[in-house]
Structures are given as C-alpha cells and as structure tokens.
C-alpha cells in the first residue's frame, strides 16, 4: 500500500443546528482516485471543502500529507498549495486572461518570475489541450475550455492532490467529454484525486473507490463493480436507478 495522502478522521460539521456531516472517516492513498456520489444535499461538496479548509468543521480532523488542518501551527494558506481544487462553475477570474488566471498564484505565492510562470502556464494549457487560448478572457471561452483552464490553474501550483466539485455538471453534453479526458489522464498519471461527480463512465475507468453519501453520512463504499452490481443499501439502489 502506498503512503496516505489525505486522512479524514471522524469529521463532523454543523451548519447551525443542522448536522451536515457526521463522523466521516476516509483514507485516500497516494495516486488513488476516489469518487464521491450521492443525492444533492448529502454533504459531498461540503466534505470536499472541508478537506482544504475552505469550510470550517467542528469535530474531528483532516490530515493532508502529514499536516493536520486543526493543528494550531498549521498555516492554511501553505497547506492549500498542496491541494488543487476545481469547481462546478469554473470560477475563473473574469478580469484576467487564461494565462493570467494560471500564473497568478505561482507568481504571487511562489514568487516565480513572470517569464518562468508564463512558460509553465503555456505547457499546462498544452496539457489540457487549448494552447491557443492563452490570451483569451474567460467570457470568450466555452464552458469546457473554461473548466480546462481552471484545471490548469489548479495544477500550476504543482499540488499533491486534486479536489473536483462536480466539474462537469454545468457543462453541455458535448463538452463533458473533453473535461473528463483531462481528468482521466491526470488520474492515470498518478495524481491523487477526490471527485464529486455523477459521471459513472469516469468512475468505471479510473475510480479506485466509490463512496456513496446520504444525509451527511457515508452510506456505502466499494469498487465500481461492487457499488454498481451489488449496492447494499436501499438509498444507493434508489440513487443508481435515478442516475442511470
């Protein structure tokens, strides 16, 4: 077994009186791809946001690459450099070109010289298949292209793990494929990934484990085959009937 990249230890989170996540335990090892699925409101996105500290939680801990999120001496900004994140609605900075979106963090956080950062950004755009869009603003890119720039932006900090929050659910069907291809390549290159997605083709191809959540709890976990062919809970069976 390879080393542990993300350890979620008995994590619970409340929004006021509402318990959004309850006693979540999960271990993600280096190079693994984990797919989180479940009905909306089940806590998948919230869990993802807890992993890089975008969302505070009240109980338990998350340990990323040996660093505890709750430890007093942990600097969240430094820790977040290790984890890239991609959002449902791309969230590119609208006032910056694709290249500027990608180079902002390397230049300001890593103090990389502009030339070097630009060079690296161009390689990343090449990698996600849109080198010709470097100087386009987000408004002039299609959804699929914007999401690929967002992936490049996250990769620019050379993260050890990537979080994907429904990266294809705001896309038109013909654009889903181009984004999934990039994600599949990443997974195959050995990136550690936690993906909230309902793209079961993607799960079948690269997921090491599928986690099914409902009402803030992990209801089921297993390989793609186990989950699909033999779901244990009624909730999972219901859910599969709806998405297939």
């Amino acid at each position, binding site marked *: 077994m390879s080393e542990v990249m993300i350890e979620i230890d008995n994590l619970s989170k409340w929004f006021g009186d509402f318990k959004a996540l309850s006693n979540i335990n999960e271990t993600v090892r280096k190079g693994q791809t984990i797919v989180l699925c479940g009905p909306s409101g089940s806590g998948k996105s919230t869990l993802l946001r807890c992993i890089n500290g975008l969302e505070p939680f009240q109980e338990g801990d998350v340990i990323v690459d040996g660093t505890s999120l709750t430890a007093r001496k942990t600097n969240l*900004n430094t820790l977040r450099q290790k984890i890239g994140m991609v959002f449902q609605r791309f969230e590119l900075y609208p006032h910056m070109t694709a290249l500027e979106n990608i180079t902002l963090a390397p230049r300001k956080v890593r103090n990389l010289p502009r030339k070097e950062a630009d060079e690296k950004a161009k390689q990343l755009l090449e990698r996600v298949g849109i080198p010709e869009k470097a100087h386009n603003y987000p408004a002039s890119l299609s959804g699929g292209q914007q999401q690929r720039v967002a992936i490049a932006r996250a990769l620019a900090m050379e993260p050890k793990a990537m979080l994907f929050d429904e990266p294809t659910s705001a896309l038109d069907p013909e654009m889903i494929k181009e984004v999934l291809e990039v994600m599949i390549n990443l997974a195959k290159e050995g990136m550690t990934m936690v993906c909230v997605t309902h793209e079961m083709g993607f799960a079948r191809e690269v997921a090491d484990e599928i986690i099914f959540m409902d009402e803030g709890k992990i209801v089921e976990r297993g390989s793609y085959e186990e989950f699909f062919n033999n779901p244990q809970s009624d909730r999972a069976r219901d859910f599969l009937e709806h998405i297939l």
Partner: protein
Amino acid sequence: MSFDYQVIVEYLPFLLGGLVVTFKLAGLALAGGISLGMLVGLGRISDKNWIYYPVSAYVNFLRNIPLIIIIFWVYFILPIIVGRNLNPFTSAVIAFIIFEATYFGEIFRAGYQSISKDMVGSAYATGLTYWQVARYVTIPIAFRRMLPSLITQSIITFQDTSLAFVIGLHEFVTRGNIVNNLEYRSIEIYSFVAVVFLVLCYVGSRISLHFETKYRRANVL
C-alpha cells in the same frame, strides 16, 4: 433687466481658479474616499467581530449626519484634538474622505457580496492569502462590477465639494459668490456656475453609461 455676460468674461480667470480648487478637492476626496472605501467594504463583510462592529458603527454614524456638519466638525473640532490649526482646504479634504468613504464602502460591500463564494474559494484554494485575494481578485472584480455606481457617487462627490463654501474655502461656488458680492449679478454668475457643473456632471454620467454598456456587451463580468 438684461443678461450681462461681460461680468463672466471679466472674472473668468478668478472663477476658473476656483474651479481648479474644486477639481483638486474632488480629486483628493475621490482618491482617498475610494481607497478607504475599499477597506471599509472589506470590513463590512468581515467575519471578525472586532473589525465588523467598529467599521459598521463608523459607517452608520457618518451616513446619518449631514455632510455639512462633518465639514464643520473637522474644521472646528479636529484642530482642538490634534493641537494645530488646519487650513480650510486640508480640513475639507479630510471631511470629504471620511464621509465619502462610507458611501464608497457600501458600494464596494455590495460589489464584494456579488462575487460568489466559490470564486473566492477558488482563489484561496491556490494558496493565496486574504490580502492577495482582496488585491488581485475581489477588489478588481468589485471595482469593475460597481463602476457605474462608483462614477455616480463620484459625480455626487464632485457636486458636494461646493459645501466647502461654509468654511470659506475658495472653490468655484465661493468665488462665484465673491464676484456676486462685488458686482450684484447673481443671475448671470450663478447660472454660469450651474451650467459649468451641469456640463461636467453630464459628461461624467455619459462616461458612466459608456462603461456600463461596454461591460454589459462584452459580458466581461
């Protein structure tokens, strides 16, 4: 009674000198008010109580007092506090900055709140710090989104500078008044002052409209 343009022509250099003071006052008030407003806006959405409450108290306090009173306060009370006299120009600049910053602050607050939680999250997720996110992401986006409101408030500020009249600052309106006291040509003089303000502010509002349509058409924000 006939319109006598001669009085305007005769005193034009004197009046335009006042307009220069008006521009200087407005320029400094806007630069200071907008800069301070950016921070005030951040304070208004802060989740830290020790920032939120004092900033909100400042905003609510100043917004509920007429500007003319603030101008008097700064001119008459601030010298007592700091222990030295302030000339009318300096005290007017201070009064306008602290007053306008509350209005600009509320515009920026609305701008910041229009930015989605995930947009800010995506910036934090790359490891940027609070101030880096503010400087490179939230402030520039809010600034562009709120540009029409910012220009409108700037036009109001420009007009409000005439209130510095009450502390004897020799700006445009004050000088118009001085000329009137010498020549008793109130209709001509005040009409001239009004037309100058009208033209300048109208141009300003056209610029605002231009940016609004430009951004909307380009769908940049």
